[in-house]
């Protein structure tokens, strides 16, 4: 594997994906460099979530190529577990393990999958709880935490695997408006630390603030993309304008 840091961390080329007869992605291509933060926006059903789920092989693609650090994802011999150690993912519904405490949720994967030392993992987990500002909640069960707190535990759980790229799939869509901010602050700090992030989001203000690049998808294709300032203020395509007009 001759991947170097000056090459794209995630390289998506001409990706097609369909569920039975429904075509969801119809030729999507773009690159994400190390340390870059990109936001994918677009109307619901435009294939945003599907695209992001294809990157860590939760959904297989029909044709095209997705490379993560030079490793081809669209390969029947792909070692999915190796890929997923490099790619962290946070879901809309948090999906914390309800039978484990916040701290155990964070510690589980490094201990069971990476077979790391328990004391070392525990120390790191405490650090991550501090990082997502949840000190004192280490021994709470997911059911005892608010949506925003659960989502921050979920972010910490992904970070515990030391991923190279983080995928966020509409992580604030299920939250109360007042808890959205605390999650966004966490992601923003992560981005400032230099983590490569790919976000699917409906938070336009946030996208404008943190993203290096915005991609607008509609009906399975990327309609328009650009840096936040140009994208939001000087959208050229009619569909983008219409979408932004409805949202902003």
């Amino acid at each position, binding site marked *: 594997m001759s991947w170097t840091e000056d090459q794209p961390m995630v390289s998506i080329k001409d990706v097609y994906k369909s569920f039975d007869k429904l075509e969801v992605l119809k030729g999507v291509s773009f690159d994400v460099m190390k340390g870059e933060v990109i936001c994918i926006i677009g109307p619901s059903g435009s294939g945003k979530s599907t695209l992001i789920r294809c990157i860590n092989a939760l959904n297989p693609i029909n044709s095209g190529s997705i490379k993560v650090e030079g490793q081809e994802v669209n390969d029947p011999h792909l070692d999915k577990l190796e890929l997923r150690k490099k790619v962290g993912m946070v879901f809309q519904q948090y999906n914390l393990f309800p039978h484990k405490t916040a701290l155990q949720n964070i510690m*589980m*994967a490094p201990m069971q*999958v990476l077979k790391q030392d328990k004391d070392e993992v525990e120390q790191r987990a405490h650090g991550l709880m501090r990082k997502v500002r949840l000190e004192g909640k280490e021994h709470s069960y997911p059911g005892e935490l608010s949506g925003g707190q659960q989502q921050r535990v979920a972010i910490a759980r992904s970070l515990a695997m030391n991923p190279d790229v983080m995928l966020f799939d509409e992580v604030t869509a299920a939250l109360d408006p007042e808890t959205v901010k605390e999650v966004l602050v966490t992601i923003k700090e992560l981005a400032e630390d230099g983590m490569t992030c790919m976000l699917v989001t409906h938070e336009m203000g946030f996208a404008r603030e943190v993203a290096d690049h915005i991609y607008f998808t509609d009906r399975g294709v990327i309609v328009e993309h650009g840096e936040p300032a140009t994208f939001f203020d000087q959208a050229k395509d009619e569909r983008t304008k219409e979408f932004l007009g409805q949202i902003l």
Partner: protein
Amino acid sequence: MVELVRQRNAIPGLSAPTTSDLAVLKPFQLASSNDKLNQIAFCEWLGNRSPSHMVLFLLLFVLVSFPALAAGGYGIEKAMDALFRWMPFLLSKGFLFNVLISVLVMLIGTAVGALVGLGQISLFKPLRIFCWSITQFFRNSPWLVLLFIVMLAFPFEINIGGLTIPVPDWMKAVIGLSLPIMANIAEIVRGAVQSVPTGQWEAAESLAFSRTKTLWQIILPQCFKRMIPPWMNWYAILTMATPLVSILGVEDILRLSRDAMEAEGNNPALLMPFYSFILILFFIYCYPIAKWTQRLERKFNVKT
């Protein structure tokens, strides 16, 4: 010619005049369709009674029937006397054996059923289909028929190398009852695993958990609690079905009671006390299990 054939196929007494003056037993027929309706209505009514009603009903039944029997020459006192004499034997040799059978069946049924249930969610299609088929087959078979088949088809001893292991009837009965229990436990396991939201699988997958690790460390611990109430329910059903084995000659409580009554001279006055005793024993054993199951069910429902 045709007339001759018809006459030859005719059944004397039914479709042809009687050819003998001996009594002929005609097929059983209900007096009228109205009676049939009444019978079903009674069963429905009985099925809808609460347990406390059932106890009252049982007591009433026993109370009403005893004086009726006492009118005969063999008194109720004598019958009760006989029952009390036999009670320790029936309890220790009979009922405890039923309990032992139920425990063994449950152990085997749970162990094999859990494997078959997990087989149904395997990614390997032939295994999945195989496990699904045997589950459906044994879930939808009458228990008594399964018992008969195992009883007749199973050898009475097994030869392994030079070693001969005898297989007594009661062990065959355990195997026979294990089959439907296995199938129902398999359904419980499959249902519980599939009741866990797919998000849990996805979260574990995206943390690089393998499928086996996901199942054992994330999915099964979550649905274990959910499996307990239906599992206990099946244990109660199984326990109540154990007297079936008496038909096959296994010396369970029902069989021993009949032996006891035989030894007491087979007087009809013995029937009610002895059979009521069996009913009450099973009720005392199974009713707390049913209540406990309900409590656990409520508790787990509230928590999740």
